């Protein structure tokens, strides 16, 4: 099929456009909005859309600029026949006319059907979804604007049937898979997917997986039944063993008990013997004790008797010594009496001498005191003379006014002040002298006589006739205040002088001088008096008087005691002589007294010593006698208890014999005890008790085991473990069998499935290779001679195209290619498919590229011209629409230029 021309009227922006197509290569150039895409859409709709179409799709075709219904006319050839197609899209009234040149004409529905037949398509119909269905028509040949880079595999898939037929034809004798093949392969694929996961493992829920699970649980059940049975059997063994253990243990227990009985009896015998031994030992000890006591008593008695005798011997020498001592003592006491008397006398003499001496001393003191008294008496008289003189001067002073120096100074100061004040007053006051007046001149309240001078000391008014003058004395202090001061001072001075009874200041000065003279005299006398120390002198004098009186009184007292006899001394020296003499008397008498006292003391000590010695002897005698008494009492008691000597001897003999008998018995009992081997006996008992205990424990343990085993064996009968084991075993065997069957079944399915896959792969290879080779021829002009295409075919569908380039590793899937490369690869695929499908269409088909290489760079577009040209050379009708016509000049195509806006035109055609 080949397009020859198209005329488009009232179709969107086209009012009436006619385009003539080159049979091989047409380039439709035009700027944006020049209506390129509209043109190809109009052609496409003429071919595939019913003329009676309505609704949105028709509305979209109508022109907003031009009146009339859209209309498209096409001229095309199919084989040797040329056809003219005219579709007038006027809604339900739309018309379609198809006529073969020089042949028949079809109208309406018939025309539509005939057209679909010529194009080899199913009519797209109308109604809902027409957009999509329309778009799918010849989608492999019609590259709409913006779809240049879409995956061409989908178009291949859409044309699957025809494509495969062509490929089968091209690929050789290989048969295509049949529908039955497909269904059976699909059936096994489904079965396989039902059984296996992607990783080839049994799928959950599959027969194989459940057989495996069943097998596992049957095995588990079998193992459980086996182990339960094993436990039962073990319990049986345990039970029997325990029973045997109990039997044996009971036997040995009985024997041990018998032995223990015998041992216990022997131990009881031993106990009795030991008790006997103890009693006998105690008895023997008692006898021995009594024997010892008897011997002890004997020994004690004789010892005491010996001691009593010794005491008696020692007593008589002591008694004669005592008598001697009594005599010596009497002599000594007499001598002491004599010495005491001598001593008394010496004491009396010494006393007397001391009193004589005391008197002498006091007399000496009286003399001395009298002398001191006289001297002091004279000093007191002198003092009194001075005091009288001072009094006289004071009296004179008292008669003068008592003007002190300070008072005088004050007065003199006042006097000077008054003088100064007066001088000031006179200096300040104006002096008025009336020299002459006809009229009486009055000043103040008095009249001034002519020639009179008047000192005006204060403001005065002067009147003379009708003349009145006021005089203001001026300067310094006011004259009034000066006058006041002067009078004040005068008052003060007067007052002071009046107080003193004086007339003038000079008198006062005189008085003061006099007073000073008297005062000086008083001071002089006072100093002399003070030098005499009147106070203490008077005091001493008083004391001397008292002392003298006291001393005299002492003399009188002593004199009384001594009595008359001694001459009263004449003077102090004599008194002193007397004192010395009396002292000598005292010394001599005191020496005598001491001598007597000393002798007395010596004697007294002797008496004391003798008396002590005598007392000691006396005590010694008393002690011995006491001891003797005690010994004799003891002997008496002892004899009373133990009897006399004969009785005692008989008793001792009896005890000795008893002791020997007891010893013999004890020996026998001990021998009997040793015979029983007590140490071993205890050990035996312990050992046998241990044996019995162990036996009991063994039995108890075995009984527990037996009970436990019995409990285990005591089945409740709800099921039979043996039967269960048999069931489980059979179940396991069955599960095993089923598992093997399931595995075999799964393997068989896997095998068939894999074989189908292998077959399909092989088949796919047959189909995909020629397509890939065809695509490769279209790729190489752009990507070089090493580039290669790989077509992916799964036995039913083409699923994709991959590009292999020498400079890149591996095959690149379409998705991974860049936008430009995708456009170029997609173009190659479309050209390949179109070339293959063209066989069904008289060897040619138009292929439209509307702005299909928008992402390709100019170099690639330039290379693409070779690809497009190759398609044209192989019989395809290449129609390229572009707004960059310069890029396609290398195609060498007929160029049709669409102006951006036109009213009514045929496009400009130009052969390049």
């Amino acid at each position, binding site marked *: 099929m080949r397009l020859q021309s198209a005329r488009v009227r009232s179709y969107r922006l086209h009012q009436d456009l006619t385009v003539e197509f080159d049979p091989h290569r047409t380039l439709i150039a035009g700027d944006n909005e020049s209506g390129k895409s509209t043109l190809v859409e109009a052609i496409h709709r003429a071919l595939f859309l019913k003329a009676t179409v309505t609704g949105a799709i028709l509305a979209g075709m109508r022109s907003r600029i031009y009146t009339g219904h859209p209309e498209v006319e096409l001229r095309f050839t199919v084989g040797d026949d040329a056809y003219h197609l005219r579709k007038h899209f006027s809604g339900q009234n739309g018309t379609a006319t198809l006529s073969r040149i020089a042949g028949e004409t079809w109208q309406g529905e018939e025309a539509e059907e005939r057209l679909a037949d010529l194009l080899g398509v199913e009519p797209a119909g109308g109604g809902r979804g027409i957009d999509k269905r329309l778009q799918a028509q010849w989608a492999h040949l019609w590259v709409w604007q913006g779809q240049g880079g879409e995956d061409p595999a989908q178009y291949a898939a859409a044309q699957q049937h025809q494509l495969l037929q062509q490929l089968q034809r091209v690929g050789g004798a290989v048969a295509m898979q049949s529908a039955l093949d497909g269904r059976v392969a699909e059936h096994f694929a489904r079965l396989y997917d039902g059984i296996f996961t992607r990783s080839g493992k049994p799928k959950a829920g599959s027969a194989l997986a459940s057989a495996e699970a069943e097998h596992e649980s049957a095995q588990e059940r079998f193992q459980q039944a086996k182990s339960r049975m094993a436990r039962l059997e073990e319990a049986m063994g345990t039970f029997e063993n325990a029973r045997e253990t109990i039997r044996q243990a009971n036997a040995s227990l009985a024997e041990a008990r018998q032995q223990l009985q015998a041992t216990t009896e022997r131990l009881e015998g031993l106990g009795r013997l030991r008790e006997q031994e103890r009693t006998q030992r105690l008895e023997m000890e008692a006898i021995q004790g009594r024997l010892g006591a008897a011997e002890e008593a004997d020994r004690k008695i004789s010892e005491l008797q010996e001691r009593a005798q010794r005491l008696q011997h020692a007593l008589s020498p002591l008694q004669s010594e005592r008598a001697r001592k009594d005599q010596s003592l009497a002599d000594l006491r007499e001598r002491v009496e004599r010495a005491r008397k001598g001593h008394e006398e010496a004491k009396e003499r010494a006393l007397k001498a001391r009193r004589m001496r005391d008197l002498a001393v006091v007399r000496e003191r009286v003399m001395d005191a009298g002398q001191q008294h006289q001297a002091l008496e004279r000093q007191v008289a002198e003092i009194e003379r001075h005091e009288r003189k001072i009094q006289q001067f004071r009296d004179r002073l008292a008669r003068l006014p008592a003007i002190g120096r300070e008072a005088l100074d004050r007065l003199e100061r006042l006097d000077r002040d008054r003088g100064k004040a007066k001088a000031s007053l006179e200096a300040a006051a104006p002096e008025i002298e009336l020299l002459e007046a006809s009229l009486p001149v009055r000043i103040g309240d008095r009249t001034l006589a002519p020639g009179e001078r008047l000192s005006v000391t204060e403001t005065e008014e002067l009147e003379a006739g009708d003349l009145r003058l006021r005089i203001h004395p001026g300067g310094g202090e006011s004259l009034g205040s000066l006058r006041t001061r002067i009078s004040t001072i005068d008052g003060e001075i007067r007052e002071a002088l009046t107080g003193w009874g004086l007339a003038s200041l000079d008198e006062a000065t005189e008085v003061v001088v006099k007073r000073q003279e008297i005062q000086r005299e008083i001071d002089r006398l006072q100093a002399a008096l003070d030098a005499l120390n009147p106070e203490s002198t008077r005091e001493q004098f008083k004391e001397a008087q008292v002392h003298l009186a006291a001393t005299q009184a002492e003399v009188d007292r002593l004199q009384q005691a001594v009595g008359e006899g001694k001459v009263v001394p004449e003077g102090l020296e004599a008194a002193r002589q007397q004192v010395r003499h009396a002292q000598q008397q005292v010394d001599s008498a005191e020496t005598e007294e001491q001598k007597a006292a000393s002798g007395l003391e010596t004697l007294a000590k002797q008496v004391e010593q003798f008396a002590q010695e005598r007392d000691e002897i006396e005590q010694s005698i008393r002690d011995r006698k006491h001891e003797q008494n005690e010994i004799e009492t003891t002997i008496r008691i002892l004899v009373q208890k133990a009897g006399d000597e004969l009785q005692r001897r008989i008793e001792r003999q009896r005890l000795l014999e008893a002791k020997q008998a007891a010893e013999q018995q004890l020996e026998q009992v001990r021998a009997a005890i040793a015979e029983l081997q007590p140490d071993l006996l205890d050990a035996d008992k312990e050992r046998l008790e241990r044996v019995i205990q162990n036996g009991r424990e063994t039995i108890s343990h075995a009984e527990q085991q037996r009970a436990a085993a019995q409990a285990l064996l005591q089945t409740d009968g709800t099921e039979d473990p043996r039967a269960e084991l048999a069931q489980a075993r059979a179940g396991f065997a069955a599960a095993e069998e089923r598992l093997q069957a399931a595995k075999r079944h799964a393997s068989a399915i896997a*095998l068939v499935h894999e074989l189908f896959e292998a077959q399909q792969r092989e088949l796919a290879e047959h189909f995909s290779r020629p397509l890939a080779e065809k695509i490769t021829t279209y790729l190489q002009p752009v990507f070089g001679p090493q580039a290669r295409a790989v077509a992916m075919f799964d036995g039913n569908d083409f699923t994709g195209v991959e590009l292999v380039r020498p400079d890149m590793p591996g095959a690149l899937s379409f998705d991974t290619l860049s936008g430009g490369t995708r456009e170029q690869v997609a173009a190659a695929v479309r050209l390949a498919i179109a070339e293959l499908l063209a066989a069904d269409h008289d060897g040619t088909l138009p292929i439209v590229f509307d702005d299909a290489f928008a992402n390709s760079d100019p170099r690639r577009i330039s290379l693409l011209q070779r690809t497009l040209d190759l398609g044209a050379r192989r019989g395809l009708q290449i129609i390229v629409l572009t707004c960059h016509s310069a890029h396609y000049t290398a195609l060498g195509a007929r160029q049709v230029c669409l102006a951006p806006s036109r009213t009514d035109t045929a496009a400009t055609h130009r052969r390049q």
Partner: protein
Amino acid sequence: MSRITFIHTADWQLGKPFAQVRDPDKRAAIRKARIAAIDRIGEVAAQRGAAFVLVAGDLFDSTTVDKPTVSAACAAIGRIPVPVLVIPGNHDHGGPGSIWQQPFFRREREQLAPNLTVLLDPTPVVLEQAVILPCPLLHRTVAGDPAAWLQGSEVFEALPAGLPRIVLAHGSTQRFVGAWADDEEEDASTNLIDPDRIEAMPIDYVALGDWHGTLPVGTRTWYAGTPEPDRFPKGTDQDPGNVLAVRVGHGMPPEVERIRTARLAWRRMAFQFTDDASLDRFKDEIDRFIGERAVETLLRLELSGSLGIEAHTVLEQMLESLEARLAWLRIVQDVQVAPTDTEIAQLKERPGDPLIAGVAASLVDRATQDEDPQTAQLALRLLHVASQQAEGGA
């Protein structure tokens, strides 16, 4: 001296699980058949005017049978009109935890089977008509002769004179070591009884249990066999499914009568398929073999040879029916799938379906050469079926 009659039986094996029977209903039916046999023994005892019934061991299949079995057994024994004396055998030995000591059994025996006496001691039991010398098995295995206690003249001197003496024992005799060993049970080297030694004693009959076929092993010594067979016979000379009515008098040789009690037919059959036509032969043979007794027949079917794909499917359907109809069908199968030339051609020669043809060719190769031909055979069958179905559905 007069004779008395008693029934000698053994190996009832009540409660045997028949675990290999997968269908629970069929399994229950086989188990029930063993209880039903007891009633027939009761009938025989009544008919023959037996004084008592002796069960020579293995009354129960295990020492741990479940309660329903115990109750059913006691009820059935209770219906026997004469005393029943039992010794424990190796299956139901009187050892620790044995069924005989379980309180439930004791209660049920008391309430349902007062005529049942379990002899657990190896001491003479003097009945009115006879003296029973029981040799109970008190352990699972006794290394030695369970009748060893019957030794020395004093044992027999103490017995009352004039009464027939019957030994009741369970175990194998040396002559049968291994001869009756079933697949999974019984070590025949234990519980060995020496029949010659016993026959030399002053006794009148030895009632043995353990061997499931009826069999005399001496002039006075018999295995009664099981009254209801419980396994597929290994040879043709075995005769299970009887009880013995024994007439015995002291000092006289016993008179023994076999009486058939079996209901179930345990059968073995082997068949080899030579070609698809042999399938019809097989069908005829089966029909003949089973006859009208499908419900009572237990069949062990051993198949071999090979069949074409379709014939194999037919065989499978046949076996499916058979399995449902019989009391039990145990198939020991090794039938190869060998597609017929036609079948191979059907699959391989499909120019219109190149994939199926290719896969089929590959599978045929594998089925004949591969190391795992069975999988390939199965795959071939699956492909065959799937193709036919797809064709049918297309």
